[in-house]
C-alpha cells in the first residue's frame, strides 16, 4: 500500500485522487470513491449493510452521514492543494434534512472562507436529486503549512 504522502504527490501529477482515499483506512471502510470536477471532487458512498443505522426503515446511520460529509471536506482540501496531510478538523455541525436511505449517496464541499490557518467549509450530501439534499454541514479545519 502506498503511503498517504506518496498518494497525494501522485494525485497532484495524475489528477487521480482515488489512491488518496484508498490509503485512508476509514474512508475505505465506508467504501468511498470520488470523481474530480472543475469545482472540486464529488465523493460517492455506496449503500451497504454495514453503514445502516436503522435496519427497519432502513436508513444510513446519522453518524456515518456526518463522517461522509467530513471525509468529503478533507478530500476537497487535499484536492485544492491546501494540505499534503489529513487536515485536522476543529468542529463539525451537521443538519439532518431527510432520512438517508441505504443507497448511493453523493457529497461535495466548498471552501466558504479561506484564512491563513483556518478553512471554513460547507458540505452537502444528496441521493438521486441534488436539489433535495439529505444532509448539510459546516466545519472548520486547521490548515497545516504546505512544507510541514
Amino acid at each position, binding site marked *: 500500500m502506498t*503511503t*498517504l*504522502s506518496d498518494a497525494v504527490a501522485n494525485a497532484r501529477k495524475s489528477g487521480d485522487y482515488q489512491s488518496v482515499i484508498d*490509503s*485512508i*483506512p*476509514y*474512508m*475505505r*471502510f*465506508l467504501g468511498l470513491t470520488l470523481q474530480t470536477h472543475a469545482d472540486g471532487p464529488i465523493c460517492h458512498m455506496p449503500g451497504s*449493510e*454495514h*453503514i*445502516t*443505522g*436503522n*435496519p*427497519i*426503515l432502513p436508513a*444510513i*446511520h*446519522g*453518524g*456515518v452521514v*456526518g*463522517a*461522509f460529509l*467530513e*471525509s468529503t471536506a478533507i478530500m476537497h482540501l487535499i484536492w485544492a492543494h491546501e494540505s499534503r*496531510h*489529513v487536515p*485536522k*478538523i*476543529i*468542529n*463539525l*455541525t*451537521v*443538519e*439532518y434534512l431527510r*432520512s438517508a436511505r441505504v443507497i448511493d449517496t453523493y457529497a461535495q464541499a466548498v471552501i466558504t472562507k479561506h484564512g491563513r490557518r483556518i478553512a471554513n467549509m460547507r458540505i452537502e450530501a444528496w441521493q438521486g436529486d441534488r436539489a433535495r439534499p439529505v444532509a448539510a454541514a459546516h466545519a472548520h479545519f486547521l490548515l497545516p503549512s504546505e512544507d510541514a
Partner: protein
Amino acid sequence: MADRIVRPEWAQFPAVSLAGMQDLENRIPQIKALGIIVESIDGPFAVSRLPYAEHLIGDPETGILHGGAITTQIDNLCAVAMHSCIGHYVPCATIDLRVEYLKPATPGRDVIARAECRKVTRQVAFISAVAWTEEDDPIAFASCTYMLMPERQPTVR
C-alpha cells in the same frame, strides 16, 4: 437534570433496560461494524466504548482515528441517553449534531464517551456528550438535538 415525566404517548413503547439496550445496539449494523459497546445507562446518563481498530484510522501517518467514527459513537450514544432518560424507546430522528474536536484521539486507545440528556420536551430532546481516550482529558464535546416521533411505528419490538 432533565425532568423525567413520562408522557402517555411514550408509554406504548417498550421500556428501556441496559440488557435490552445492548441487544438493540447489536442489531444496528453500523454499531456492530464499529464494535461500539454501551457500558452503562443511568437515568439521563449513558456511557459507551469505541474500541481502537485499524479500519477506523483516519490518518495513516499517525494512526489517529477518523473523526467520523467518534461522530457515530456520539450520535448513537446521545440517542441511548435520550431513551434512557425517557425510559421508553420512542422513535426519533437526529435533526442536528455538533462536534468540537478538542484534540486527536490517542492512537491505540479506546474512545470512551459519556452523554447526558439535558432536556426532553413533547417533540424535541437536547443531549450533550464528552469523549476521551485518557481520563480527565477530553478529546471531543458534542451537542445533539433529536425530534421525537411517537406517531411512528416502533423501531424496537
